[in-house]
């Protein structure tokens, strides 16, 4: 069992220690600074926090002494010449039949470091970061320097190589609502999934484009959205424009992937070659943000259901966690220990985690719940935290 929890919150990083079988929070770190993601590098125990400064730009902070002190890590920057094709939120007078306007190019600047993922044990110093706008950055020196993964940035699904010239294809990557806070409408990479058996095999999930896979260490990328249905697009089976909210894979059976999508819960048992919609609206399993999968059994997963995209809150005023053990054929909702009246929490994409039989989730209402029996019973670790953006076991 893990003995440390990291919370990224609107007001800083909260570290919990498990001491004598009790989870106890420390005083907040990065006090007053929004932290959109915090996690521990399992290879060396370094803690990382992504600071979401409203004024000073996104920064990375790290602690090499288990959270006793923090230092600023080098900034992630788009290289000179990084451009993207601007997207705008359709307005009420949007005319879908109007001629397509010429591409409008913008220089890329990082607004948010949304995800930090650590490389394999044998890849010393390898780290990945996903950003808004949708860049995948790679470090091979423990975060001292970062390189943009150009094959993904230059992917034909977003216009081709804009370093070299104008677009050679259409940009199908839409903007994520999560970017609106920054006054832009750009896609973002929130999920980076490494195949634990093959360091050159990885996936990313992009809001709002979909899932992409690389089997050659990021040199080439292919869309993996077959079977994902986007019911708010004119063509629900479109190759691009999907809105995975979070994607994860089973550690021991990495061909089993799960995604909580804007349009339901999807499961793949074949390495994302195809997806199957496994929502169960009758038990509330459809809309939500986070999803977790068992480390050993790829058919077992958990979600924290929400009412709907137009009502991003707990269903009927009561929180529940739903679990499937059969690849989404059936779901069971667990409520023991969770508030069942006057609860309006929403749990964001990085705010559910699993370590063995232990699960933990936190909400933007500042409530934190933990289960030590695979989600069947919960107890509250606190109700007065700042809005919680990420929950990760160390």
């Amino acid at each position: 069992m893990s003995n440390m929890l990291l919370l990224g919150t609107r007001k800083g990083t909260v570290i919990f220690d498990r001491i004598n079988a009790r989870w106890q929070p420390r005083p907040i770190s990065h006090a007053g600074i929004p932290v959109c993601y915090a996690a521990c590098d399992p290879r060396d125990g370094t803690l990382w926090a992504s600071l979401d400064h409203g004024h000073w730009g996104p920064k990375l902070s790290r602690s090499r002494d288990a959270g006793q002190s923090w230092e600023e890590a080098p900034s992630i920057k788009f290289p000179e010449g990084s451009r993207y094709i601007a997207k705008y939120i359709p307005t009420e007078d949007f005319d879908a039949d109007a001629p397509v306007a010429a591409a409008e190019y913008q220089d890329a600047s990082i607004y948010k470091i949304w995800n930090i993922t650590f490389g394999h044990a044998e890849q010393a110093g390898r780290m990945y970061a996903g950003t808004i706008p949708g860049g995948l950055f790679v470090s091979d020196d423990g975060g001292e320097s970062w390189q943009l993964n150009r094959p993904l940035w230059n992917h034909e699904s977003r216009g081709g190589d804009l370093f070299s010239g104008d677009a050679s294809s259409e940009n199908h990557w839409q903007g994520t609502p999560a970017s609106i806070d920054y006054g832009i409408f750009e896609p973002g990479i929130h999920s980076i999934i490494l195949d634990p058996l093959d360091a050159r095999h990885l996936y990313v999930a992009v809001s709002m484009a979909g899932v992409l896979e690389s089997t050659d260490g990021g040199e080439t990328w292919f869309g993996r959205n077959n079977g994902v249905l986007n019911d708010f697009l004119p063509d629900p089976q479109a190759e691009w424009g999907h809105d995975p909210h979070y994607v994860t894979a089973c550690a021991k059976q990495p061909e089993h992937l799960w995604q909580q999508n804007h349009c339901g819960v999807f499961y793949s048992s074949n390495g994302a070659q195809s997806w199957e919609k496994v929502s169960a609206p009758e038990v509330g399993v459809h809309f939500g943000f986070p999803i977790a999968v068992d480390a050993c059994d790829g058919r077992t997963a958990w979600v924290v259901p929400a009412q709907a995209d137009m009502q991003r809150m707990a269903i009927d005023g009561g929180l529940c966690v739903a679990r499937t053990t059969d690849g989404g054929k059936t779901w069971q909702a667990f409520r023991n220990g969770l508030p069942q009246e006057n609860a309006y929490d929403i749990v964001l994409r990085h705010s559910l985690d699993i370590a063995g039989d232990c699960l933990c989730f936190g909400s933007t209402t500042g409530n934190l719940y933990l289960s030590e029996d695979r989600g069947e019973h919960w107890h509250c670790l606190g109700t007065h935290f700042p809005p919680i953006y990420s929950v990760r076991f160390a």
Partner: protein
Amino acid sequence: MVTVEITSHLYRFFPDLRNRTISVPPGSVAEVLASIDKITPGFSDYIVDEHGALRKHVKLSINDTIVIDKKTLSDRVPQGATVFIFQALSGG
């Protein structure tokens, strides 16, 4: 030389600048920031993005005149002037 006055918020990240006068050669605003970077590496990352453009909620003025060129920070800072760096705080 020109003097640079910074919002107290930035002392949290650059404590070495506290209780000292920041004095750098005149030039463009971009050159002034580059000079501060030599004193305190990484300072300009807080003020401008990777293209050298002023971050959205950061304001710069030369004496009491707000900097006009927010994209390349080409405004001239004359000898003896003071550059002020401040930010618009909001939210809860």
